[in-house]
């Protein structure tokens, strides 16, 4: 393997900017020859690393654990995502996955089992369903804004971004009793952004709540919603029925797949608009550009840094030989900033209508919540700018980020004139 994939194949050895010493000095790690998605240095130097990577090291290698490759170009990400026969999800989407960690359903399945779930779940998450709850989401946004607008400042993650996706999903998609919401949304938030040693306990609490919710719904009359569809289950390719654990996993996958990612998308939208008054003005003057702007926000600030696949056979991508069993990651964050497909990838261009990017995934695993997320981000942007047209990152504060296979923002203070 090392014969075919010597560092010379991965990084131009003649480029002084890419020498191991120079990269270590600049980023604290040679992310190109030994990438690590969990290294705190990636969080600190995030956009510098991924931008240099997509330009000059479209295939990085990691020596962490059993090792993996990170593909950064839009083309390679698309090819890997679409070719599910060669690049399987069935061994998990994060590298060096602990053996005792249960697989998430259906994201860590391949067709035909994955297809069985998506076929029944997709109609509940389609664009028409999401259009129908547009006004409800606008009301949610405004109710949250009402609570802090007179203060002239807010901690955006705790008071808006951390609440809206949970409320939208639990009320309008899953139909969780409204009385349970404050605690549930709080627990989801703590499981994602709470103190590290408390996150597992909060995750367990969310799991237990959602399993109990499913059990209660099983005893009730069917309502024809997504919960009934999950409870009805699916028949897998081998003729077996999806287990109870798989049904609970589907609810967890929908919950966690959608909430943390949308929190980051909202946070980076707000931060970009706070930092770019001229682009804010463009949207105030041209509200019809908001949907384009949403595409640009998620393209340039992808909530998913990278997701992985396991090679089912020997193959080749970007001139790199891969062996059966090798682990590869699709670098969504960098692929959305690929100068081969976007002329000026670091600039956001709201006037450009045909932006394409792999942020919502490519291939059969395309984000099932993409229609909900796009609607939510557009409604948020419209309503926020209507209520608070001019705002900034609060003086003396710095937004706080976290990075793993997801990019996350845990604190963003904003202020505006009262």
């Amino acid at each position, binding site marked *: 393997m090392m014969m075919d994939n010597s560092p010379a194949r991965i990084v131009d050895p003649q480029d002084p900017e890419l020498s191991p010493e120079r990269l270590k000095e600049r980023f604290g790690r040679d992310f190109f020859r030994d990438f690590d998605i969990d290294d705190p240095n990636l969080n600190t130097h995030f956009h510098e690393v991924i931008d240099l990577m997509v330009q000059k090291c479209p295939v990085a290698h990691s020596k962490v654990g059993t090792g993996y490759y990170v593909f950064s170009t839009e083309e390679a990400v698309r090819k890997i995502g*679409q070719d599910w026969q060669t690049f399987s999800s069935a061994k998990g989407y994060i590298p060096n996955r602990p053996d005792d960690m249960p697989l998430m359903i259906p994201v860590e399945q391949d067709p035909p089992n994955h297809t069985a779930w998506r076929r029944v779940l997709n109609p509940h998450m*389609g664009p028409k369903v999401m259009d129908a709850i547009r006004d409800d989401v606008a009301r949610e946004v405004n109710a949250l804004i009402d609570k802090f607008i007179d203060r002239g400042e807010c901690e955006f993650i705790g008071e808006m971004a951390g609440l809206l996706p949970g409320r939208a999903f639990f009320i309008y998609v899953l139909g969780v009793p409204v009385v349970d919401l404050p605690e549930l949304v709080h627990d989801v938030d703590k499981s994602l952004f709470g103190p590290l040693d408390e996150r597992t306990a909060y995750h367990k609490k969310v799991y237990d709540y959602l399993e109990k919710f499913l059990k209660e719904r099983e005893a009730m009359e069917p309502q024809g919603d997504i919960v009934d569809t999950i409870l009805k289950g699916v028949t897998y390719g081998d003729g077996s029925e999806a287990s109870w654990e798989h049904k609970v996993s589907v609810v967890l996958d929908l919950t966690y797949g959608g909430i943390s990612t949308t929190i980051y998308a909202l946070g980076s939208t707000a931060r970009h608009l706070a930092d770019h008054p001229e682009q804010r003005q463009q949207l105030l003057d041209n509200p019809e550009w908001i949907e384009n702007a949403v595409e640009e926000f998620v393209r340039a600030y992808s909530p998913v840094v990278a997701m992985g696949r396991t090679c089912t056979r020997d193959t080749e991508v970007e001139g790199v030989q891969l062996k059966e069993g090798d682990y590869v990651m699709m670098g969504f964050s960098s692929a959305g900033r690929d100068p081969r497909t976007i002329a000026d990838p670091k600039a956001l261009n709201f006037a450009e*209508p045909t932006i*394409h990017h792999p942020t*919502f995934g490519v*291939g059969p695993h*395309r984000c099932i919540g*993409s229609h909900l997320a796009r609607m939510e981000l557009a409604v948020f942007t419209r309503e926020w700018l209507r209520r608070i047209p001019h705002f900034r990152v609060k003086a003396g504060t710095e937004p706080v980020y976290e990075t793993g296979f997801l990019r996350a923002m845990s604190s963003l203070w904003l202020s505006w004139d009262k």
Partner: protein
Amino acid sequence: MRMKIDETLCSGHGRCAKFAPNVYTLDDSGYNADVGQIIAVPSGEEDNATKGRKACPERAITEVDG
């Protein structure tokens, strides 16, 4: 102008219909309703049809001759 919608590549992003609702129709799940078909673009909708083609993250839409 005619467009071919690839049956295996369409993954339900729904971007095509955003730009050309009079050209591309989505099913309830957000997938192009004409996958596997070649569709005729109505006269005057050529620009929108092209925008819809270019916006597809899967490159599932191709213009075909004739």
